[in-house]
């Protein structure tokens, strides 16, 4: 497959994706589903980076999602700032929180790390529900519609249909960032740290710094999803920290395994389609979602098992690039 054909196919896919909601009927429900799919996919891509590449099970990704949502809510309702400043604020908040969390959890053992990141979210819920600055149990409402003004041009999204281009652009950017990350030096380093920390160290890589860097790179991506979610819903409360989002992210990441760049997007699509169009009630949906996660992990090794166990070919490729050979096992 030549480069030109590849580029053509990707462009075709991108254009087709943009028109997907229209092709699927164009009703408000479809647009709503597509916008949410895009937002949650971006959220999941942030987790994908941590889980699939570094191999850390960070259960606190929702925190960044909430950070993006709450920052946007606060900046757009208080000082009445627009989406661009709100976006920057969300990015900043995410990076700061990631840095703090990353430093604190730097030297923890694997499952203690998971416990702590899980607990951080629970604690955050307490703050979100009790702190009046964050709206308390009522949350922060009255977020104005997404509106960009530049000289005489202006763009307003009053509903999901109008918000779709923004959402679609966001998911494209997220996918591109993950793709670029995986081919970057940091991405390669992360993979090596994941597969063989000792060997990585001996190749001159600092595992702690790599982990922290990836953490701080993935947080803004998930926060961006929170940023847009605030506009989509026009309202932010402690709900954004519900365990639902964590389960959703994890399932989306493991469902199609590590090998596929579009995996998280496909995973989120499947889950949300079930929720929106094949639902048997919220409680049953919980059972379905949890069940899918369990089944994927236990029965489908190409899912998470394939992502978190050493993949010898990938390892050899990565290490070869760094000028080392893996010692043969006797």
């Amino acid at each position, binding site marked *: 497959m030549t480069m030109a054909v590849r580029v053509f196919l990707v462009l075709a896919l991108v254009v087709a994706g943009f028109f997907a909601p229209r092709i699927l009927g164009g009703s408000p429900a479809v647009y709503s589903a597509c916008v949410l799919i895009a937002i949650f996919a971006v959220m999941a891509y942030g987790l994908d980076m941590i889980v699939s590449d570094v191999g850390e099970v960070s259960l606190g990704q929702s925190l960044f999602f909430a950070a993006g949502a709450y920052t946007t809510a606060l900046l757009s309702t208080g000082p009445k700032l627009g989406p661009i400043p709100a976006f920057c604020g969300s990015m900043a908040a995410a990076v700061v929180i990631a840095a703090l969390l990353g430093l604190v959890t730097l030297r923890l053992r694997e499952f203690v790390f998971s416990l702590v990141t899980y607990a951080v979210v629970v604690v955050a819920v307490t703050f979100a529900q009790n702190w009046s600055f964050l709206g308390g149990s009522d949350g922060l409402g009255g977020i104005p519609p997404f509106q960009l003004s530049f000289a005489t041009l202006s763009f307003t999204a009053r509903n999901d249909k109008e918000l779709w281009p923004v959402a679609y652009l966001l998911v494209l950017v997220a996918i591109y960032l993950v793709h670029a990350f995986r081919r970057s030096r940091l991405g390669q380093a992360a993979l090596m740290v994941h597969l063989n920390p000792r060997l990585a160290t001996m190749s001159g890589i600092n595992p702690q710094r790599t982990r922290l860097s990836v953490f701080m790179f993935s947080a803004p991506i998930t926060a961006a999803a929170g940023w847009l979610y605030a506009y989509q819903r026009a309202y932010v409360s402690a709900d954004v920290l519900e365990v639902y989002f964590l389960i959703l992210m994890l399932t989306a990441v493991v469902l199609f395994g590590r090998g596929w760049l579009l995996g998280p997007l496909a995973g989120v699509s499947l889950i949300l389609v079930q929720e929106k169009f094949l639902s048997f009630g*919220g*409680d049953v949906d919980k059972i379905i979602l*949890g069940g899918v996660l369990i089944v994927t992990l236990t029965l489908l090794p190409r899912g998470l098992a394939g992502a978190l166990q050493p993949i010898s070919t990938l390892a050899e490729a990565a290490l070869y690039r760094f000028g080392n050979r893996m010692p043969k096992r006797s």
Partner: protein
Amino acid sequence: MNLSQQFINGLVLGHAYALIAVGWTVLLGIARLVNFAHGQIYMLCAFVAWYVTSRLGLPYLISFPAAMLMGIAVGYVMQRVLLLLTLKQDLVSIMIATLGFGYVLQGTAALVFGSTGQIFETPLSRAEVYFENVWFTYQDIAIITATIVLFTVLRYTIKRTHVGRLTRMVAEDPHLAQLAGIDVRKVYLAVFAFEGAAVAVAAVLVAPRTPILTSMGFEEVIVTFVVVVLGGIGSILGSYVAGLALGLFTAFFGALVAPAYTTAAAFAVLIAVLVLRPGGFAARAGEH
């Protein structure tokens, strides 16, 4: 503020925390499994016990076997489903799968028992005791007694009986235990069942203290984490001491500062300890 009252509250709360955590620390210590569904199993057992006493009108004592049956059944099902992952020692996938299990349990409980909060009343929780300037119930006494008894029996079993020795061998090295002729799979099953039974007993005794909600599992498990990590993974005595310390801390913090932020404060203590000593207070060799 009544110091003695807070002390009594803290004591009761501490024993409750220790009791809830004991199954989890045994599972973690012996099978090295992190069970994120622990809080939801607690919630489910609490609801079963409530249903048995409030809806079916059966005596309180019956709720013990009922809840324990539920706990053991859930533990058994989880272990069977996760069996392949356990034998491959794929601990990460197991951990995430237990998250999924917890979510399924939450949905199931909401479906069966509804989403409204319930008050689980028992003859013990209604029997109050006023002594000088403190107040407590017979339920509180039951919690403390049961916890002390369970912990003593457990510690004795692990240190001195043949069964305890088997579990310690599996805990230290499952492969070497297999080479000693031990059926490690059976031990894992038993330990999972024990966790279910222990958390069931905890639920029946402790749940009457506060209203129960099908969504409470999510937060419930945090306190268990703190107790186990502070007390040392797999250490029975450590869980007891850490539970007690945490209970007293929570009671006094809640009374002096802010009741809503007690979990956050406990978590902050955990973070502080972990930053200073990343290994927690791990049990020394040979100590249990």
